[in-house]
Every structure is written in C-alpha cells, then in structure tokens.
C-alpha cells in the first residue's frame, strides 16, 4: 500500500506540473491589465508538487529502510543483512532511486522558488514557473514511463541481491545527494534565465534573484565533487583522486559552467553588463547538468560509476536533453537580439578580467566535453579510442594557466576601466612568486612541468587571494568579499595539494613477510600480523601495520582486503595516517604462495590540501550567499521604510499647506 501511495503521489505531482506549466503560460499570454483566472495556480501548484515528490522519495526511503522485498527495486538492490545506514543510502545507489531523488530535489527547489521569491515581476515569475514545470514534467514522464521505482514483484523475493560493495560507504550518503542538489539547483537558474528572456527582464534586479540560486548550486557542486574525489581516493585502493573518468567529467562540466555563470551573474547584478552572456551560461550550465545525468543514467558509458544499462532509458533522456537544450537555444536565438549587451567596459577592468576567465572556463569545458564524448562518438563507428590524463591535463592547462594568472589579478582591478600601472606592485609580486617558486623547486630536483607550474601558481594565488584586503579595515570588509577571498584562496590550496601529489608522491609496493619492514619516506612500515575478521556482510583479511616516523612511537594502521558475499566481490579498504603535511596510504593485497603479503604504501605530501581547498571554496560560496542575502534584505527593508516615509510625507502634504521653501 505504501508503495502505491508513493506512485500515486508521483502521478499527482506530474499532473500539477502540467497545471503549473499551463497556468504560467496563460499568465504570459494575458495582455497588460488582464488577468487569467488560471494564473493564480502556478505558485501553489509548484509548492504542492514539491511536497508530493518529496513524499514519494520518503516512501521509497522507507521501503529501503524496512527492506520491503515485494518491491522489485529493493529486491534487486538491497539486502536484509546490510548495515542500516547503507540500506538508507542504497535508496539512491541505483537508477530508479537516484532519478527519484533527482526529481524530488527538482520539485523541492521549484517549490522553494515559488514559495519564497517575491522580488521578480509577476509575469517573469509566471514564465519561470512555466519553464520549471515543463522541465519537471519531462523528468516525471521519464520516471513514470521508463523507470518506475515503485514496481511490485508478483511474488516477493526471499532475499535481496545486495548493493555494490564499493557503494557501501558513507561516501554514498554524502556525494550523490549533494551533487544532485547542485545539478538541480541549476535548473532554477535555467528557468529564471528563460523566464527573464521570455519577458525581456534581463537586468540587475533579475540577476540579484538568480544569484543565490547559482551560488547555492555551485557550492553544492563544489562540495559534491570534493566529497566524490575523496571517496574515490580512499575507496578504490590505489591512491588516485581524479581519473578523468567520464562520470567525474559529468560532474566537472556543470561545475565549470556554474563557475562562469556565478561570476557573470555577479557582473550583471553589480554593473548591468554581460546580459546575453549570463543567459547563455544559464542555459549552458543546466544543459551540462542534464548531459551529466544522461551520461551517468543512460548506461552509455562503461565506467565504474555506471550501474545502469538500458538503451531505452538512454534514448528517453537524450530526447529530453534535445527538447530542453534545443528549445532553450531556439528561444535564445529568437530573443537574444532583443536583449542589449549592457554597459560597456574597458579590457583592463574587473569586468574584462571576468570575461577573460569566463571564456577560459568555457574553453576548458569544451576540452572536457570533447574528451568525454569523442570516445563515445568513435565507438559508434566501431573505433575504440581512450582519452585520459595525458590528454586532459595538458589540453586543460593551456587554458587553466592563463585563467589562474588573470584570477590572481582580476579582483585587484577596478570596475569599468583601470590602468594596469596602478597595480604594478601587485603584478610584480605575483610574477616574482610564480617565477621564484618554480626556480626554487627546480633547483632541488627534476619534476614534471605541470606540477611545477601548479606549485608556482599556487604560491602566487595564495598570496594574491588576500591582496584585495590590503589597505582596508578588515572589520568593515563586506562578508561577500570575504567569501571571494576565501574561495580564491581555496583554489590556491587545492592546486598546491594537486601539484604536491603530482610532484612528490612516493610509492612502495612489496611482498612482505609478517615481521618484515619496508621504508617509505620518513616512515618505517612493519607488517605485524594478518588476521581474518568478519563484518555484518563481509569477511576480510586485516593487516596490522606498525608505522614509525623517524623511529618514533608506532601508530597502528589496519587496512583490510574485504570479500563481500552478496553480491560476491572483493574490495580493498585502505588505511590512512593523516599528518598535517600529507597522508600515508596503506593497502593490503593478496598472499603469495611463499606466505608473504602484498603491501602497497604511498606517502602523499599535502594531498589532503586538495580537499581542504575544496571545502574552503565551498565555505567562500556560503559566505557570499550570506553576505549578499543580508545586503539584499537590508536594502529591501530600507526601501520599504523609504516608501513608507514618502507616503507619510505625501499624506501630510495633502493635509497641510506646502511648507515654506
């Protein structure tokens, strides 16, 4: 019964999406001064729809929590013996459940927009809600027609098949929901952009409405990618943190577009420039979200993440993708001419730097898109090509290096027009840091070019991030500016971590007999014993590694080689020793015939900075949202007070004779 309620809620939500679409569209068609009787339904439809979609998701969550084996989805993806937390997270560890989460977040963000956004002109809001309803409708159709999560089995299964052991990790609780919320947050940016374009309201007021959504989605994407990268790093057992895997790229591409969009929308809000850019990037960002969903959900990829293979679904999402992107681009082409470019500015200005970086971000996006899609394209013609790090790293760096350099300088420039000579001290400092650090590091050894460049840039960016604060009273710096400073500093921190990992990592692979010791960096790693242990749904061989740094007190690490029995699969559980300046990463492999054990140990200096940087970037984004919201609220309060006062004065003026002046 519970499952049927969930299904009914989904159908009702789909019907409300139709109402939202119709109501919004009719509002648009009504002439000035007229009101359509159906117009009042758009907002309530969005809100109720949000409740229904979230309800459907919660009911599926319940089915997984109690392992309701009469549901096909639960029986194929869960297991009664699985730890409770993984039963819950397993709800979205499969195709149907993750699409329901997607749709739930989509409806929830549409509902929030409808319930709380009162700043936009009513017509723009109606158009936005119509677009949001149209997008939601497509995904409801996808869910209901080709991926029903509430399908029953004729005969309930005796036991479930279990969840892929790689996914039985706390990472699954964090990574997909955060990422999805980010993906889908961009749908609101998309709808707002379309709404503003349709009603010709592309202006700073619109940008101020759009900005928190873009920032919010961007923060969630940042945190989702950071979490996913760390999860892959400790879970896959070989110490890699980014593989340029198509699914990773699917999350990186919306992030790149959102980063560009966020900067562009700030320029629009502050300076009324870059109007068409902002709209274009709004379309691009959500297109990349949908493309990401298509790549991951259609099974078109063969990769560690793609746990769903079904061509029918792929064709469905591809159809939706074509419909929405094609439709948006058509509207854009028809209306872009009507949107003026906005205020002009000189090349050497903050807008100029932001345009440069937006173009660079788009170029990196183009490279990632090409490298991700090209192998799929050639595969259709029976030619298999691999595109990996040796391609993405240098091709991306061509654009990333100039972008990072401009990023260091951009915040120091003034709006509209500036003279580079005004900031010559800062320019010299940045150049000196890049060159100095590269020279210093090359003096100590031979390192690959990209990590070397990364170290130089990281040092310069780390200092440059704080230069906008120079000469200002720190207590009076706006919160949003702190957000920018911290986010830019986070980029430097992350880059430093990546470069150090690339340049200075040490690796030790060896067959070790119990009692044997291996040396890596400053660490002596002794294999004390290997013992079998059992968990709730796995058995494992657990190694006791005693790690001594420079002959100091030993720290015990316990990496495991786990064997899950449903589904039968082995995984390596790495053990990490985190120091302030890096991580020791240890994995135990199989036993050789002579009784020795394969042990893999890495010392990765400052590798943790990659993710600390990601967290800082997210924190910067959150500070920006808070700062902007506070300013907006204050401004609104001030303008209401002003209006009140003017009305009072007028009322007085009407009653009393004109004051002598």
């Amino acid at each position, binding site marked *: 019964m519970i499952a049927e309620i969930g299904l009914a809620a989904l159908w009702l939500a789909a019907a409300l999406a139709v109402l939202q679409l119709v109501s919004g569209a009719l509002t648009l068609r009504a002439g000035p001064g007229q009101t359509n009787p159906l117009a009042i339904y758009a907002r309530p439809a969005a809100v109720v729809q949000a409740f229904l979609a979230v309800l459907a998701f919660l009911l599926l969550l319940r089915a997984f929590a109690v392992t309701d084996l009469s549901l096909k989805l639960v029986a194929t993806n869960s297991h009664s013996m699985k730890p409770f937390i993984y039963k819950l997270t397993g709800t979205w560890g499969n195709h149907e459940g993750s699409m329901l989460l997607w749709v739930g977040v989509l409806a929830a963000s549409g509902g929030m927009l409808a319930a709380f956004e009162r700043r936009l002109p009513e017509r723009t809001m109606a158009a936005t809600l119509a677009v949001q309803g149209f997008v939601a409708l497509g995904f409801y159709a996808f869910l209901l027609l080709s991926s029903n999560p509430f399908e029953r089995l004729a005969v309930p299964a005796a036991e479930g098949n279990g969840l892929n052991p790689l996914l039985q990790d706390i990472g699954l609780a964090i990574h997909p929901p955060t990422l999805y919320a980010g993906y889908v947050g961009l749908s609101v940016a998309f709808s707002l952009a379309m709404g503003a374009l349709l009603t010709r309201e592309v202006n700073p007021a619109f940008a101020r409405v759009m900005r928190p959504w873009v920032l919010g989605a961007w923060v969630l994407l940042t945190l989702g990618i950071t979490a996913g990268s760390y999860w892959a790093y400790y879970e*896959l057992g*070989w110490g*890699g943190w980014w*593989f340029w*895997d*198509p*699914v990773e790229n699917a999350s990186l591409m919306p992030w790149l577009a959102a980063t560009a969009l966020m900067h562009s929308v700030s320029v629009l809000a502050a300076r*009324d420039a870059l109007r068409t850019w902002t709209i274009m990037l709004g379309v691009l960002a959500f297109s990349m979200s949908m493309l990401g969903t298509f790549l991951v959900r259609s099974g078109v*990829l*063969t*990769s*560690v993440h*793609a746990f769903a293979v079904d061509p029918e679904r792929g064709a469905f999402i591809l159809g939706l993708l074509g419909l929405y992107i094609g439709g948006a681009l058509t509207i854009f082409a028809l209306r872009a001419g*009507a*949107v*003026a*470019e906005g*205020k*002009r*500015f*000189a*090349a050497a200005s903050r807008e*100029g730097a932001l*345009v*440069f970086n937006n*173009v660079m971000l788009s*170029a990196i996006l*183009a*490279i990632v898109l*090409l*490298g991700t899609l*090209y192998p799929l394209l*050639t595969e259709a013609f*029976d*030619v*298999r*090509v*691999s*595109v*990996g*790090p*040796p*391609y993405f790293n240098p*091709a991306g760096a*061509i*654009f990333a290096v100039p972008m990072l350099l401009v990023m260091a300088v951009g915040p120091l420039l003034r709006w*509209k*027009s500036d003279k580079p000579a005004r900031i010559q001290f800062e320019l010299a400092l940045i150049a000196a840091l890049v060159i100095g650090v590269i020279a210093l590091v090359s003096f100590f050894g031979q390192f690959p070019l990209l990590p070397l460049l990364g170290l130089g840039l990281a040092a310069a960016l780390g200092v440059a991030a704080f230069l906008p604060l120079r000469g200002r009273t720190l207590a009076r710096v706006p919160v949003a500016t702190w957000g920018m400073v911290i986010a830019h500093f986070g980029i430097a921190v992350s880059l430093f971590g990546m470069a150090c990992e690339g340049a200075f990592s040490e*690796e*030790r*692979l*060896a*067959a070790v007999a119990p009692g044997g010791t291996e040396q890596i960096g400053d660490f002596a790693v002794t294999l004390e014993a290997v013992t079998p242990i059992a968990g709730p749904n796995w058995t494992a061989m657990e190694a006791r590694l005693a790690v001594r740094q420079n002959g100091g007190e030993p720290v015990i690490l316990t990496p495991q080689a786990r064997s899950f029995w449903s589904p039968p699969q*082995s995984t*390596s559980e790495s053990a990490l020793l985190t120091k302030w300046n890096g991580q020791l990463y240890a994995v135990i*492999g199989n036993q*050789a*015939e002579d009784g020795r054990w*394969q042990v*893999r140990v890495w010392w990765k200096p400052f590798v943790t900075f990659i993710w600390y940087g990601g967290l800082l970037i997210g924190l910067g984004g959150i500070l920006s949202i808070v700062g902007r919201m506070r300013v907006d609220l204050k401004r609104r309060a001030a303008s209401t007070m002003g209006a009140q006062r003017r009305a009072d004065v007028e009322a007085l003026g009407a009653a009393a004779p004109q004051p002598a002046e």
Partner: protein
Amino acid sequence: MIRWLFAVLLTVLALPLAAQDSMPPAPYAYNQLADPRLEAEASALMHTLRCLKCQSQSIADSDAPMAGDMRHQVRARILAGESPEAIRRWLIARYGDYVSYEPEVSSTTWPLFAVPLLVILIVAGVLLRRLGKRRSDGDDAGAAA
C-alpha cells in the same frame, strides 16, 4: 578494424585469461623495480595505459589480474632496457589504440587535436571582439533597452 582487433584480442587473451585467476600474479605485478629511476619510468608509463578489463582505470590503478600482468610486462621490459615509447607501441600493436590513454594523431583521432586549436582560435576571436576594441568611456548607448 574492430573485428580483427577483437579476434586478435581473444586469441591472445583467451587462454591465459582462463587460467589467470587461479595463477599467482606475475613477479612484477605487485613489486617495484629496484632502480628508482627505472621504476619512475615504468610508473609514468603505467599511468597512461588502460586496463582493458576494467572501466576507466589505468593499469596502475587496478586490482584486475590482467592489469597485474600488464604491469609485469611493462616493468620487465623497462628492466630489459626497452624505452617506454617502444613498449607503448608494442602494446598498441597488440591491443589497439584503445590501450593507450595518450591519443596520437591519426586518421581517427585528429579531431581531438584539431578542436582544441579551433577553441584557441575561437577564444582569441571572442576576446578580441569583446575586449580588443577601445571602448569610449561612458558610452551606454547600447544599454538603454
């Protein structure tokens, strides 16, 4: 092309693969070369070779038995004095372009190199158009609409 490739792949791999899971891994699958310089060479090469049995992993990142065998091949050949590029060519001749993550310019991969050049040109064009022209200060004529 793919058909003969698969035929080659199957004939070369079928027998050893069938036996692989029960066989102990080859000596250099999980052991490093003694010479750190040679090991660095081998490791750099291994990171750019695809594990054919895995999904989007290099042979340096995989527990699959076949990746272990390929690591052994790479290390053994580096130790025997072969250059990394020669080993890559040998593997490509054996398994096809698919094995190498480092695409080379060929009749099937040229767009991978042409498009970035095109992107550079487009980027230059867009930047010149947006930023190149000297804009007179305070010219807000276009912003009226």
